[in-house]
């Protein structure tokens, strides 16, 4: 479980708040999508969970333990982190990239080798890729390695910051649904930042809408799609519905003609 308790964060000594007095919690095994415009504070929220960003006020806790109480690096070894920039280490092979957190944790060579082989299968890449360098991979393959690297030390929390945002739509869709299956199978708690409402609706168990550092909506996708008092949230959630509607009409017309 992840909990935020009255958390605020400002990057300019209090003139503007990236996150303002936010309180919410995420139960274990939930897939939460954080949506909002760029600059809304959703990435700041995410990075406060693994202390890549420190809150000014309030407390963040993971499994009932305050994250402030532990060293940032050991916290991050327990939490998987995937982001749009991927950030594979260019001077290390795919296997070395996947095995990095276990190496930092001091696992034995055999354990690490077994785990990397297991993970490369899990993200559906051929094992021959283990010896390749990141520069030899396509964008989609790289992010598969990025996901494998994040999962290497068997975390039960995954933080994902627009993980598939830079990929082409087909790859993005494939990776998204494959990841959702991994989430189920491994019983993960996932927090994913995205600005793509469609992605949030299709992957998330719960959607949190953030605007100007505050949470303006929080609920199951179906719930937010049907009705919400805030006009901004309505407009946001309208988009996937309108798109789906248009696609449906197009298909009907085609069926009628054919």
């Amino acid at each position, binding site marked *: 479980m992840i909990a935020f308790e009255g958390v605020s964060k400002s990057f300019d000594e209090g003139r503007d708040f990236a996150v303002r007095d936010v309180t919410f919690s995420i139960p274990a095994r939930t897939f939460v999508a954080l949506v909002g415009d760029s600059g809304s504070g959703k990435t700041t929220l995410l990075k406060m969970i*693994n202390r*890549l960003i420190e809150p000014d006020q309030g407390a963040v806790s993971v499994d009932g333990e305050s994250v402030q109480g532990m060293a*940032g*690096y*050991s*916290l*991050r*070894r*327990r939490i998987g*982190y995937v*982001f749009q*920039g*991927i*950030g*594979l*280490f*260019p*001077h290390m092979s795919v296997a070395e990239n996947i095995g*990095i*957190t276990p190496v*930092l*944790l001091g696992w034995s060579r055999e354990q690490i080798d077994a785990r990397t082989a297991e993970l490369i299968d899990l993200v559906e890449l051929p094992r021959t890729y283990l010896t390749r360098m990141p520069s030899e991979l396509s964008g989609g393959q790289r992010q598969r390695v990025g996901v494998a*690297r*994040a999962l290497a030390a068997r975390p039960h929390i995954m933080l994902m910051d627009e993980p598939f945002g830079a990929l082409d739509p087909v790859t993005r869709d494939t990776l998204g649904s494959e990841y959702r299956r991994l989430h189920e199978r491994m019983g993960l708690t996932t927090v994913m930042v995205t600005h793509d409402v469609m992605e949030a609706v299709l992957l998330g168990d719960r959607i949190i809408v953030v605007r100007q550092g505050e949470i303006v909506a929080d609920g199951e996708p179906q719930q937010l799609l049907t009705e919400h008092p805030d006009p901004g949230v309505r407009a946001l959630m309208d988009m996937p519905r309108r798109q789906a509607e248009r696609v449906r009409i197009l298909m009907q017309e085609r069926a009628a003609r054919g």
Partner: protein
Amino acid sequence: MGERFAAAARLLPDYLGQHVLLSAAALALGFLISLPLVVVASRNARVRWPVLGFASIVQTVPSLALLALFYPLLLAVSTVWEHLFGHGFSALGFLPSLLALTLYSMLPILRNGVTGLTNLDPAVIEAARGVGMTNRQRLLRIELPLAAPVLMAGVRTAAVWVIGGATLSTPVGQTSLGNYIFSGLQVEDWVSVLFGCLAAVALALVADQLLGLIEAGIATRRPRLAWLGLSALLGGVGAAVAGSLAVAGQPAYVVGAKNFAEQYILAAVMTDRIRKQGSPATARVDLGSVIAFRALASNGIDAYIDYSGTVWTTVMNRRDSMPRQQMLQVMTTQLRKDHGVVVLGALGFENAYALAMRRERAESLGIHTISDLAMHAPELRIGGDFEFFARSEWRDLRDKYGLRFREQRQFQPTFLYKAVATNEVDVISAASSDGRIRAYDLVVLEDPKQVIPPYDAIVLLSPARAADPLLRRALGPLVGAIPIDVMREANYMVDRDTNRVAPGEAARWLESKIQRQ
């Protein structure tokens, strides 16, 4: 030509070995100091600009001046050291050269290192934090390996600069490939100059290629290539240093010499004589005028020839003049008392500063004395060597005769004589024992007011060798044994345009003249 080439080649193991040792030590030290600075500067912008700014300022100081500045600095430190711990260290030679070149090597390493570390892909840095690396792990596993190729490119640049700059360590008493260049320039042995240049260039190219191998090995992640480059580099340094040591051995006596032909010849005479007494000896040539005396007083060298007038004015800071014998006596007691330096005696000739003109020019203007010269001076141009116009003799001459020239220029001694011969200047500062006075048909102007003090060549011994019997046996017979005409002829053998001989050969000829007396 072939002979001079062979003579230069014989000196190569020693010069090259010392050059390599100095350059390698400076580069290694520069690298070791720069690396932590690079790390700190890349993480902290407030440290970054002072560090890079300081390194850039060091770079703008001409390298020769940087080397020269370390000498007085180290001398002061050595004096303090001596007070504190009872023994000083030599402020000449290896130490000032090493420090100056180390400073010189740092800018490219710092600049490239900081550029390499601050321009890494931010996504990679974020990932390094995200997977749970500590700051130290991030530096060692990610940042330094990724910045290494850029850093190595800086090391290559530094290596080329240091190898070039090391040639300038000769004037502060460190043997290097610069010995070919400085000595060659003095006696117009262009084969020697060229030999020195080519050797330095070849050394720089080889070092650059081997460092390039390491750089390529790191950049393309082929550790074996990097190790190959590194071992070849270390092997080369080891071989060069071993070669130098094998040639040099451990010289028991070091004879100093300033930077002109007469000094080279006399140093060769002295080392030959010490060897004949059964002890190894080497010459340390191309020392600056004041540096030579300081080196002697601090036992950096054991003996050298200086001139009474020079010591009188520059070491003892005396402005008055007195008769030759009396001056020599005062000097002998004073140097012994103040510095522990022994004046063994005068060689028998004088090498005084004098003003010289082309004979036909002097005659057409009717100039015989410096008083005559004063009347024509406003239309004439004077040339001097690098120290002449800074010396008290020149100030005295100028003030006592009222000399006001149209133009005043400085030349390297070799070019000074050429300049008067080709009418580029009308009057030059000349040395009275210089063979080129005859060669270029110059006349030395008389000094009726006796402004210029006597310049007897004198043998000086260091405090540590004050009572050394071998040195006294070897050098004692030189006192009073070299008349001016013999010295001039020996000088001319080295300075003349055709059939020029090496200083060592002129020394053997001079020795035969001394024997015959």
